[in-house]
């Protein structure tokens, strides 16, 4: 796929999302504030009742900043996962026209997926800057130009990793009539095991080795912790390398599923 075509698909998709401005602002402002408020009041109660200064290596202020970072970066990394329409294309038979295009279907869909990141990028800048300027960074958090730079790279890799994880799930539509529940299951797993609901440092010791071998931690926890200056350069590089390895492995698996799936694809649709 040529970079020009990639950019074209990306632009169309981002314009499509931005065209519903009321929806965009309602969902972005309220969703962010509500998600953050729930975590804020929950942890405020926990800190107040336990009398502890730090839980799981976080002060209360640092933990809230972690959630700000994880929620906003998470939106950027997931893009708009509901707009990944691979299963719908297979189910409705509209995949046929893509098969006739002189371009990779995977790349086409990834360009669309990247296009859904634009609204999230706008939200990240607005809310991130607003939050930091209103509350300031707590003493145990060190956001620097270097951590921001490393996070940008992490986000790009994590976004591709998220898509690489989601794509084979969508391809199950070659054999199943509805994969919506698999998508939702994947979303729950990402939220819990990726660090959106809780920083992974909160998990018990016995769970850490399991979390370390799974790809989910590279989705939200690693980028957020990198931004907050809690990962060294070496840890960050290990994270990026591990993500790339996962992407390569998933790429091979996806290729196999795609080859088998397209053989059973009839193009009839519903």
């Amino acid at each position: 796929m040529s970079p020009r075509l990639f950019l074209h698909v990306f632009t169309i998709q981002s314009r499509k999302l931005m065209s519903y401005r009321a929806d965009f602002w309602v969902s972005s402002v309220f969703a962010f504030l509500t998600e953050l408020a729930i975590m804020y009041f929950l942890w405020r109660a926990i800190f107040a009742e336990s009398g502890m200064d730090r839980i799981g290596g976080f002060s209360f202020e640092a933990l809230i900043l972690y959630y700000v970072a994880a929620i906003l970066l998470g939106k950027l990394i997931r893009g708009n996962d509901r707009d990944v329409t691979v299963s719908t294309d297979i189910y409705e038979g509209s995949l046929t026209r893509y098969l006739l295009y002189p371009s990779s279907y995977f790349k086409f869909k990834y360009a669309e997926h990247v296009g859904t990141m634009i609204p999230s990028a706008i939200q990240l800048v607005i809310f991130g800057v607003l939050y930091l300027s209103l509350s300031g960074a707590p003493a145990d958090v060190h956001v620097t130009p270097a951590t921001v730079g490393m996070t940008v790279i992490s986000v790009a890799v994590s976004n591709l990793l998220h898509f690489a994880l989601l794509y084979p799930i969508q391809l199950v539509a070659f054999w199943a009539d509805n994969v919506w529940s698999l998508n939702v299951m994947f979303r729950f797993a990402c939220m819990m095991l990726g660090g959106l609901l809780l920083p992974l440092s909160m998990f018990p010791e016995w769970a850490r080795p399991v979390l370390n071998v799974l790809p989910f931690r590279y989705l939200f926890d690693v980028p957020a912790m990198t931004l907050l200056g809690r990962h060294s350069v070496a840890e960050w590089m290990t994270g990026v390398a591990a993500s790339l390895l996962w992407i390569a492995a998933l790429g091979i698996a996806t290729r196999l599923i795609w080859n088998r799936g397209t053989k059973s694809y009839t193009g009839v649709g519903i």
Partner: protein
Amino acid sequence: MIRYLRLYLHFLRFSFSRAFEFRLDFYFRILMDCVYYSVHLAFFAIIFARAGVVGGWTLDQTYIFVCGFLVADAIHMTIFANNLWMLPVFINRGDLDYYLLRPVSSLFFVSVRDFAANSFVNLVIAAGLVAWAIARYPEPLGAVRIAIFAGFILLGAFLTYLSRMLFVIPVFWIHSSRGLEDLYYTIDNLAERPHQIFPRWIRWAILTALPLAFVSSVPSHVLFEGLTIERLAHATAVTLGLFAFVVFAWRRGLSAYSSASS
């Protein structure tokens, strides 16, 4: 009333036979809800490994609260959710005509026509979880209190439906459902936490205007502290008020509905 019951039995029969036509999806959905339940329980288990109390509740009390929420959610998913997901599509495409032409209440018909057979299996699992949470509770709770708790959970499921309707009905005027849907599913997260952790103004909101605290938080309080006349009157007033408002909004929405061009 008998006519409505007979009609509902027909809905059940159609829904079960349809669910078994898509067997793989049927099992996927059961698995999906099991993952959802695990996430909720694990979230609080991890927190309680680090803190002894959340919102004045112990782990045992919180498990009852979480499992109560899962039951209310499963009831909502079984009876109402599928219908409410499709309602904006019906309104925008003009498919609502089909429902309006039937000789029964259109609100009843659109709200309960599709019974989610797969979620019914999950309802059984969620009920098992709440039974487990009550059984492991260190003090005796008493059959009467447990029965009242169960009644309040049913009410919570109904209030979830009414709250969700508040975010679906505006589609009659604004046509796009996506922002409202996102908004509801974000606000709905308030029901997943004990309401006493929130400041007064949020507590007021989720105990009156959008009564998400009644999904499981208030029922759990009733179970642990007993039912008072004030609480019963509050629950009755909130339910009747919200139900009347939803019926009123539905009628106004129907008068704005112009079939396929809506």
